[in-house]
């Protein structure tokens, strides 16, 4: 076994006990990246020199007997939509190629203060718009479990990197499922925090009322560890909430006999893969065995979530992405006649297809004469969707659903039909609209050895409860923990 295969909490403990050094760990991490990332293509930028230097600093602290911070020596990969000072940040877009942020996102500063080491930036759907990482301007990322399949998206690079043991943990962002769906498709643990739990300062905005940063990890413990570090109020983000951050790890140790679980019937609809449903049924039995009380629940407005989400998200995106005009940073077209044509040519050459489609949709929904029919209507339906959740959470502590209707799908399978692609986020989107937290973790494998994920949803600021439920399930579900075997031969064939 190589050190990169450890979990973050195992690595920190071994460093503290002086059994291994942070430098040795970092070497194994970069060896793995050198070995497999030409097949996975999870990374856009690798921060090797700086990371090795920081590992040596951790080792010096150990040698001097200094107190170590909670993530000392932990390798973290960062989705390329979070600004990192001095390290290129592209959002998977040609329009930001070469952009070197002059400042760190708040989450980056918090990770660094906690001793974590940023090892690189990960691939993603352009501006987080997509569910497969195929919309990256720099080419797709491949799923470590089957290189002919997508890792999910938009945080596909982050998720694939964790699954392929190229990093211990990663940060992703989730606007409609972009942490949970790729975590599910890659067999990892991914948490979307409550809106306002984690600062968005330095997160390049896609849909500001929905975006949240969260961790992707190999197990629930690592997820809780990172959550503790990145959560909390920040003066730089007026939507970040000033609430105490609980000790997520501690609460995991308690049982779940007290939990009332609702299973929303609207989530088991036509189109759900029978293997996903089978794995879910089995998982629910585990929860029952652990003492949780399970009942069928109802979220009657579920079927309206997708159109509501795409109207709100694209409207916000059309406004947020107006800043890419070629003036202050990023790409500028070479040839143009005047200022207006400079904007047009820059944006037309710089943005990819899906981004243009969403800007167009959002601009249309906000345009004069259509605002009430589309945007305002969607905001009203958002209220109804949120009220559905308010109601069920009066009766239940958590909800359990599948994370994605199917395991990982093949590359190019859904690219040509945007609506079909949008449907792969059907179980994750309502959670963003309600602003509540949800975690996805593995609950089994399909016959063709693809991971299947389940989603645990909680009320606002109940990260403690969903992490506790996830931890108890993880420790007792009897599903054998597998690692993907990354097979290059198949991949080459697929590329022909």
């Amino acid at each position, binding site marked *: 076994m190589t050190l990169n295969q450890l979990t973050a909490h195992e690595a920190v403990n071994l460093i503290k006990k002086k059994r291994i050094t942070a430098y040795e760990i970092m070497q194994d991490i970069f060896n793995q990246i050198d070995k497999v990332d030409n097949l996975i293509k999870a990374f856009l930028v690798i921060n090797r020199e700086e990371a090795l230097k920081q590992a040596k600093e951790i080792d010096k602290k150990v040698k001097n007997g200094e107190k170590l911070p909670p993530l000392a020596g932990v390798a973290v990969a960062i989705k390329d939509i979070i600004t990192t000072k001095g390290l290129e940040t592209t959002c998977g877009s040609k329009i930001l190629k070469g952009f070197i942020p002059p400042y760190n996102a708040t989450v980056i500063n918090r990770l660094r203060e906690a001793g974590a080491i940023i090892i690189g930036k990960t691939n993603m759907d352009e501006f987080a718009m997509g569910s497969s990482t195929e919309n990256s301007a720099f080419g797709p990322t491949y799923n470590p479990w089957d290189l002919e399949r997508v890792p999910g998206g938009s945080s596909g690079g982050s998720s694939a990197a964790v699954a392929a043991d190229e990093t211990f943990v990663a940060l992703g962002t989730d606007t409609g499922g972009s942490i949970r769906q790729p975590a599910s498709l890659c067999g990892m643990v991914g948490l979307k925090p409550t809106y306002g739990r984690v600062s968005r300062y330095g997160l390049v905005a896609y849909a500001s009322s929905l975006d949240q940063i969260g961790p992707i990890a190999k197990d629930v413990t690592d997820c809780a560890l990172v959550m503790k570090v990145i959560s909390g109020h920040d003066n730089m983000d007026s939507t970040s909430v000033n609430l105490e951050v609980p000790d997520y790890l501690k609460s995991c140790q308690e049982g779940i006999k007290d939990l009332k679980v609702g299973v929303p019937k609207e989530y088991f609809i036509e189109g759900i893969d029978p293997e996903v449903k089978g794995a879910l049924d089995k998982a629910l039995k585990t929860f029952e065995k652990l003492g949780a009380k399970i009942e069928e629940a109802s979220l009657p407005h579920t079927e309206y979530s997708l159109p509501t989400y795409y109207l709100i998200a694209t409207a916000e995106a059309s406004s947020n992405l107006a800043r890419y005009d070629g*003036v202050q940073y990023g790409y500028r077209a070479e040839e143009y006649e005047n200022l207006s044509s400079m904007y047009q040519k820059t944006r037309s050459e710089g943005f990819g297809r899906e981004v243009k489609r969403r800007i167009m949709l959002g601009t249309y929904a906000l345009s004069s004469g259509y605002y009430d029919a*589309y945007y*305002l209507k969607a905001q*009203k339906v958002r209220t109804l969707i949120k009220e559905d959740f308010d109601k069920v959470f009066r009766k239940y502590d958590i909800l359990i659903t599948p994370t994605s209707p199917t395991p990982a799908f093949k590359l190019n399978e859904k690219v040509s039909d945007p609506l079909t692609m949008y449907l792969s986020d059907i179980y994750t989107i309502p959670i963003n609209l309600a602003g509540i937290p949800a975690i996805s973790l593995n609950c089994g494998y399909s016959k063709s050895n693809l991971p299947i994920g389940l989603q645990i949803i909680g009320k606002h600021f109940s990260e403690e409860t969903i992490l506790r439920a996830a931890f108890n399930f993880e420790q007792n579900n009897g599903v054998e923990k597998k690692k993907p075997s990354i097979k290059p031969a198949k991949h080459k064939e697929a590329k022909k």
Partner: protein
Amino acid sequence: MTEKIITKKEVEYVAELSKLEFNEEEKEEFTSQLNSILDYFKKLDELDTEKVEPTAYVISMPNLMNEDKVKPSLPREEVLSNSKYIKKGYFKVPKIM
């Protein structure tokens, strides 16, 4: 699909608003795709929302203001360092007037 919700002409107008330009083939493709997406969005019309308040942000919070105090900002050179089009400490754009 029964009727067109958005015409090619409207697509051209929205493109203008979005500061995007498309060739003929792209215009056709966008018109057809936007039509099927908007057609799907019609589903929301099934709901009577007349008495429903819109939600913009899910966590209701008072407006938070930072103190009105001058703090150090990023150095000018750093801010300008991401553009090739700099003249005398300013961003250079084509002539406007």
